[in-house]
């Protein structure tokens, strides 16, 4: 091993150690638990697929899983679409990071404060309803603004846009303006340039920002509970209930691993989708 490799390993070791001890080992333990049984908070060693079968046959779990995925996908899509123009502006149109700092500023406030902030904006006595009532445009507060999936997506988009923006800015910084200029010189329009030049070059950053946001949003169970009204039950909450209320760690673990598999499958589906659409050439241009 060369000195360069040795120093690289030494630099990597602390982070790798943290991941191994605080993520990999607990995850493996949880995987083992998922094949065990439980009785009143007491784990019973076994090797059975009963928990997985029960979860997959549970219409509640399936419905909530689909609902969580829907919220995650919509939030990630909207966040990426809204972040992209701003990322382009920050990278190519202005040399200042001021706009990025303005977006990131919201992260300096508490997560819960932001959620309750949205309640104050969308609620019956909130900013929007009060303004519309004061302007005489409505007689009664609009109920549909809050306590539904739309409110959840709006709030989570606000929460996760800084993540997608950061990742897209990072990806776009690797795209040389010369390539875009060359495409234009060769007669490509804006959409052709985007699909043929920019997107293939940032596909990894784009997929990462999309999947990162999708997984975080789909697993979030605070925002859906506070803003989602009756649609507020998510997979995270179901899993949490098994660990806390029912004391059935094996069943909770099996649900967690099913969710994990679903997210991994979704990731590969997105990657394959990009490849099939010839948007992910897996070749470095720079």
């Amino acid at each position: 091993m060369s000195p360069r490799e040795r120093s690289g390993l030494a630099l990597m070791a602390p982070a790798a150690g943290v991941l191994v001890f605080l993520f990999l080992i607990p995850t493996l333990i949880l995987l083992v638990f998922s094949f065990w049984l439980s009785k009143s908070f007491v784990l019973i060693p076994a090797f059975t697929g009963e928990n997985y079968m029960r979860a997959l046959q549970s219409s509640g779990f399936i419905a909530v899983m689909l609902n969580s995925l829907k919220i995650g996908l919509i939030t990630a899509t909207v966040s990426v679409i809204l972040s992209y123009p701003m990322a382009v502006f920050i990278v190519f149109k202005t040399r200042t990071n001021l706009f990025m700092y303005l977006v990131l500023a919201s992260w300096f406030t508490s997560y819960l404060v932001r959620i309750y902030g949205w309640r104050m904006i969308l609620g019956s006595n909130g900013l929007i309803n009060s303004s519309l009532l004061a302007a005489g445009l409505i007689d009664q507060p609009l109920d549909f603004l809050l306590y539904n999936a739309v409110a959840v997506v709006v709030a989570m988009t606000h929460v996760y846009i800084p993540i997608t923006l950061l990742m897209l800015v990072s990806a776009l910084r690797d795209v040389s303006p010369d390539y875009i200029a060359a495409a234009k010189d060769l007669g490509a329009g804006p959409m052709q340039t985007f699909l043929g030049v920019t997107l293939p070059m940032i596909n990894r950053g784009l997929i990462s920002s999309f999947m990162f946001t999708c997984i975080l949003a789909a697993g979030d169970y605070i925002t859906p509970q506070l803003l989602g009204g009756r649609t507020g039950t998510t997979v995270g909450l179901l899993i949490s209930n098994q660990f806390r209320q029912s004391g059935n760690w094996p069943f909770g673990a099996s649900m967690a691993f099913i969710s994990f598999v679903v997210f991994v499958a979704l990731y590969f589906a997105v990657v394959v989708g990009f490849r099939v659409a010839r948007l992910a050439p897996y070749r470095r241009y720079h």
Partner: protein
Amino acid sequence: MRRMWTHEEVRAAADGRYSELLLSRRRLLGMGAAATGAAALGPFFPRAARAEVGGTLRMMTWQGFDMIGDAQPWLDANGVKTELATITAQDDVQAKFLGGSPVPIDLTEYNQAYNRFYVDELDIIRPLEMDKIPNYNKDNIFPGFYQGERWYWDNTQWGVPFTWGLNSLVYNPAMMDKPTSYKDLLKPELAGKITITDEITGTWPIAARVAGFGAKYPNVTRDELAEIFEVMKEYRAQSKTFSPSNGDIISLFAAGDIAACFNCWSGIPFEAAKQGVKLEYVIPEEGAVMWCDAWFTPRAAENIDTAHAYINETLKPEYQAKLAKATTSGCVNHNAVALMDEETRALFNYDDLDSVFKTSPLEGIPPRESDEFATYDDWVRAYEDLKIGL
């Protein structure tokens, strides 16, 4: 084998009469080696329980219920320091004490519904030594809170109740007429104007009552459970949301988003008034549900004597009156009632607590295992399905 020190020798050492111990060189070396070994291996072994009041008292309570500020003179006088942890859900309690390395908390509290579960199934509660809690006696304590079945069985006191309250129906009189029954919440004009408290010890028994199975709760069959949650679907359809906390409920009332709350803490109107929202709580024909929290010392407790002494302190009338005011709850020591301000005293009918117990009984939780009745897990599943909308 080396003999243990006698009490007299220990006392002599503490008094500085070392010569009385007649330490031989070998014994001195042995003690040094033992001390070194203890220092090295100590962290890997459970610490010994303290046998006097003092040291650090590790407590875990619901927010605001530790009342450390008001106990400070007592803590200072007894040289007690505190380490506090907060309970955010009842599940926090059992989670801390299960497994091979239970957290060494000296004093915490349980909701009455979990009594048998904690003692008989999880075995996380240590019997209390009642000679160390003299303030818990039938002359001081309301009869309903003295040695009841939720805290005392098998000739053993497992918990000492110290605070209680009611979960009932809270409404905003500016948005609806005074309800007399939970069924009033099903009126069409209240569609989307109610919330259901997402808390099982109150919501489940009230659900059983509105479906006509209140007398059987918590022992209902699986068919009856299905009927209960069929009825609850109507309340879900009327609801705007399931509220995860009291703060959330107050926020919903303050924002004008809801007119009423199903299974609501009776202290909500008191807390909402601080935000300028006038609410009222009523006990409808289905009755209310009483909750009562009891102190207990976990099996993993170390500073046991101090925990007992602190329990004793919290049963004093002055402390009880302050706790009731600060937490908008009820007292268990009847001598505290005279020390309360009018507002706090008016929260509950202290003149006729027997009738409060009749209309608002202390409820349990469904059995963990049963072939005959719906189990706790059956209830969790049915409740989850209700929330999901299945």
